[in-house]
């Protein structure tokens, strides 16, 4: 990167290349089922199961007040798949984009843009479905798939924000951890894993010995639901920046 001085090739005018970044977004969507199709098939499947359960409960005479739909995790069902999508974007699409002459930088920026779009789409859709479910009184049978966990309590905007933060974190965690593998292979993964475990243990030990657990819980209580998800959003941003730094020297398998 220092041998540029003698370059007869004209310098690219701008460091920001919208076309180069946009084509990575298009590359991620050329097969739309990966980011859009499958998550909705999973959500649709979970919804169908929830509906069947609701119908069974109602015909058994159990009222909405007694059922436990508030504790259903069905609304989060696509997240497990989307973490894998984040991994595959790096493990498979990254080597392919390099073969097509993309730079690592543009690939990461394009992928980040894609994650942003997907998170906005999922957040808007789920927040709206929560409202629809409330409006239709649980799809007319008192089923509670979207209006569950922390959803449906503080309104559309909070539901949107929390889903957006969670979605972005899920995608960036999968992708940024895979950048470590693409750069340092198994050795890097092991160091990352053991490092993370060590940090968590040290944190637990520190908090336990200083007897600060109540203070931690108080703090989480004081920042509230939105605050907690802002922390998640911050973690997503950390993953995004770390992934950018790591991928710059990553190599395809």
């Amino acid at each position, binding site marked *: 990167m220092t*041998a540029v001085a003698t370059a007869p*090739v004209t310098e690219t005018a701008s460091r920001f290349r919208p076309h180069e970044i946009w084509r990575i977004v298009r*590359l991620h969507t050329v*097969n739309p*089922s990966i980011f859009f199709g499958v998550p909705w098939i999973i959500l649709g499947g979970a919804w169908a199961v929830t509906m069947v359960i609701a119908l069974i409960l109602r015909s058994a005479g159990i009222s909405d007040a007694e059922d436990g739909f508030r504790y259903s995790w069905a609304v989060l069902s696509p997240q497990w798949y989307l973490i894998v999508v984040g991994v595959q974007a790096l493990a498979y699409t990254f*080597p*392919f984009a390099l*073969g*097509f*002459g993309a730079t690592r930088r543009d690939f990461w920026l394009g992928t980040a843009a894609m994650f942003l779009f997907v998170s906005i789409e999922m957040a808007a859709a789920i927040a709206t479905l929560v409202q629809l479910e409330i409006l239709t009184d649980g799809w007319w049978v008192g089923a509670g798939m979207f209006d569950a966990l922390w959803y449906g309590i503080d309104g559309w905007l909070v539901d949107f924000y929390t889903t957006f933060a969670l979605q972005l974190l899920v995608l960036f965690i999968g992708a940024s951890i895979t950048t470590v593998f693409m750069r340092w292979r198994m050795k890097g993964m092991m160091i990352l894993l053991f490092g993370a475990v060590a940090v968590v243990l040290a944190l637990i030990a520190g908090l336990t010995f200083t007897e600060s657990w109540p203070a931690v819980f108080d703090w989480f209580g004081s920042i509230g639901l939105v605050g907690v998800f802002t922390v998640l959003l911050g973690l997503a941003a950390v993953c995004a920046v770390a992934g950018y730094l790591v991928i710059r020297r990553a190599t395809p398998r």
Partner: protein
Amino acid sequence: MTRTVVRASGLTKRYGSFTALDGVDLSIEEHRIYGLLGRNGAGKTTIMQLLTGQIFANGGELEVFGRTPAEHSDVLRRMCFIAESQRYPEDFTPAHVFKSAPWFFENWDAEYAERLVSDFRLPVKRRVKKLSRGQLSAVGVIVGLASRAPLTFFDEPYLGLDAVARHIFYDRLLEDYAEHPRTVVLSTHLIDEVANLLEHVILIDQGRILLDRDADEVRGSATTIAGARRVVDDFVADRPVIGRESLGGLASVTIDGRLDQAERIRAAELGLELAPVSLQQLIVHLTGTDLAGTTEQEAAA
């Protein structure tokens, strides 16, 4: 004047204690067809990965279109490299590959790609994972040809291709190369298949370049002399021997260098047979010491 598109000196790549490339010097001129030849694991793919900025060298200098290739968009956009073991995005089909190709290759010719697809009878709706080895090679060949990138790499393009498909690749490459001149680097260990296609040969073995010469020069550069062992030995006494085979009292010796008219006449008078050495034979002689090696050769060494 032709331009030099690739300039490398002392290029070294190590993987742990294994040295994949060991101080390679190399230059590639514009608008020629290069053969990057060598045995499996010789370092062919490593060279191509370095040239396309996919991996980083441990030492040496490398300039492609005047710059280090890695992370330089204006260099990378002029290259096309579909690796033999290329990974494709999850659930990708050849149709997806050809649909996204024009976003990355400004000279992409979609009509031409379509014609190639029917020439190779490639099932474009089948998942890449389910393609046969030959069909997978065809995907790489079609992208390489239709991208018309100024510097195009073909990594083992013949792998798994049937005879008809090999012929199609050969014909299409020469046709299209004549119409749209560009620099082609073709790696293969199936040397006889491509011998006539190549204008320049770079032979690599165990991370070092053994031969870097014009293909026509290489073709005539070695001779095999066969006959009675003692006569042959006398004849080649002061010549550089690169290969030797013997059976009973007969020997067949390959020497580096061509024979002039007088030498040919003398050989005929001695009852020796002269045979041209094909590119493949020459390369086996140069790199296959452990394969073709006989006790004789060790004795001679």
